[in-house]
């Protein structure tokens, strides 16, 4: 009787797993359909001039340009340049944002004083600072990295500081009963408890840093994928614009995946 019951449960479980698998297959299938359909319609529309091929180009043209640029090595150089700036801006933005959050946590008085300024800085469109930055720092890698950083630093500070403040005060009480100093409280409770929040700002910052760096390259206009876009726009080569966009999409996705992987590693015990 008991054996029969167990057998029945095992059978039901297998059925359940199969349903899950089937659902996953269908999801993948429709994702592939959308992908293929999008490019097919684009290609067709472009060839039959349903859309202006000069503006919207076509997948085959973008692909051919991509391959050609890959072979002559220019694409890798430009993409590598942009990627470096983005990663640097992203890391610096997160780092300085977290440090700023730590300072605010350290001094409640300072955080009260700075509060309105943070609000203003946060709501201001940071890319508008671009021209000033370029004149101040010079039209080089430095100012572009600054753009990538500045766009994410304030929002990082605000989000991380909020999470610092929301750490359960009882964890701090535990540490205080052992006579913990402020530094010890920060290192043992505040920072590790806020890792999930920091990681989730990382996810936002990936996107923000790309915006900052691309706009920076628009303005400096000497190298990188942002330059290719602005150059393509000026000479009316939209195949070049779309190809650059395509490369950016791939890199941004990869960076996001990397952050997600880090998230899984770092916060597996919660």
């Amino acid at each position: 009787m008991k054996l029969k019951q167990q057998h029945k449960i095992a059978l039901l479980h297998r059925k359940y797993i199969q349903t899950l698998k089937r659902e996953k297959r269908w999801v993948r299938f429709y994702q592939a359909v959308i992908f293929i359909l999008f490019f097919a319609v684009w290609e067709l529309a472009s060839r039959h001039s349903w859309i202006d091929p000069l503006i919207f180009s076509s997948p085959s043209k973008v692909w051919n340009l991509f391959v050609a640029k890959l072979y002559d090595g220019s694409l890798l150089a430009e993409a590598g340049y942009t990627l470096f700036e983005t990663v640097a801006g992203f890391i610096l933005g997160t780092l300085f944002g977290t440090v700023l959050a730590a300072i605010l946590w350290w001094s409640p008085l300072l955080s009260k004083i700075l509060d309105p300024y943070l609000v203003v800085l946060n709501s201001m469109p940071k890319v508008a600072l671009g021209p000033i930055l370029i004149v101040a720092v010079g039209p080089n890698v430095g100012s572009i990295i600054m753009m990538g950083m500045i766009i994410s630093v304030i929002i990082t500070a605000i989000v991380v500081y909020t999470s610092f403040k929301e750490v359960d005060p009882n964890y701090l009480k535990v540490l205080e009963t052992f006579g913990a100093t402020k530094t010890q409280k920060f290192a043992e409770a505040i920072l590790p408890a806020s890792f999930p929040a920091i990681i989730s700002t990382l996810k936002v910052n990936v996107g923000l840093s790309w915006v900052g760096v691309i706009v920076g390259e628009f303005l400096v206009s000497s190298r990188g994928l942002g330059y290719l876009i602005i150059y393509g726009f000026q000479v009316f080569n939209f195949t070049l614009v779309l190809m650059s966009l395509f490369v950016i999409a791939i890199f941004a996705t990869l960076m996001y995946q990397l952050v997600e992987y880090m998230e899984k590693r770092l916060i597996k015990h919660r």
Partner: protein
Amino acid sequence: MVFLKLENIHHTYFTKKSATTALAGVTLEIGEGEFVSFLGPSGCGKTTLLSIIAGLIQPTEGAAFLEGVPVHKMKNQIGYMLQQDYLFPWKTIEENILIGLKLTKTLTAASRQNALRLLGQMGLSGFESSYPHELSGGMRQRAALVRTLATEPKLLLLDEPFSALDQQTKLRLENLVHSTLKSFGKTAILVTHDIGEAIAMSDRIFLLSPRPGTIYRSFTIPATLKTLSPFAARNHPDFQAVFQQIWKELDEIEAAT
């Protein structure tokens, strides 16, 4: 000899809109090795009193002395256990129980050994490298007790440490905590709103009345109950009598406020 002395403690919390007096004129003395309970309805300032004794907050008036020294000048002589375990979820059990030693910079091979032995006594050997979420509520509270005892505090403050546990785990843990503390000869103060728990565990009970919190009465538990383990005490014929007496007093407090 007086071990812990509270002298005319007043405490008032200030907010923008109000000043709430949590404690008014609390004076008491506790001897070394004694187990006492603060019993009272919510809002009687039990946790505030405990925080003052722990030196975490300064009373607006009065002072607390441990062996004649003001408590806020003492370091690491007082252990505090909270309502929940508050083990750090990102640390292993071993890292959790050693945190006090690490913070007070007294982590040596010997003190580490001592903490791990204590963990074994609590029936948690083999869980050193587990994470808190892998343990049951009772096991976690036992680990929290090891964390508190690892720094060898002279005085232990227990702030409703069993209130978040199920009845069975709670009764077991009462016995374990009681026997552990008695065997080390530790002085302990238990805050609770559970009359039975207070009678079963303590030598003396202070009844607190609320708004503002002050000591309403104190009871000495009869020797017949004192010597028994909490679980045995709950089943002793004298238990009910004490329970009734405290129950009546609590009713009077409620009627008076």
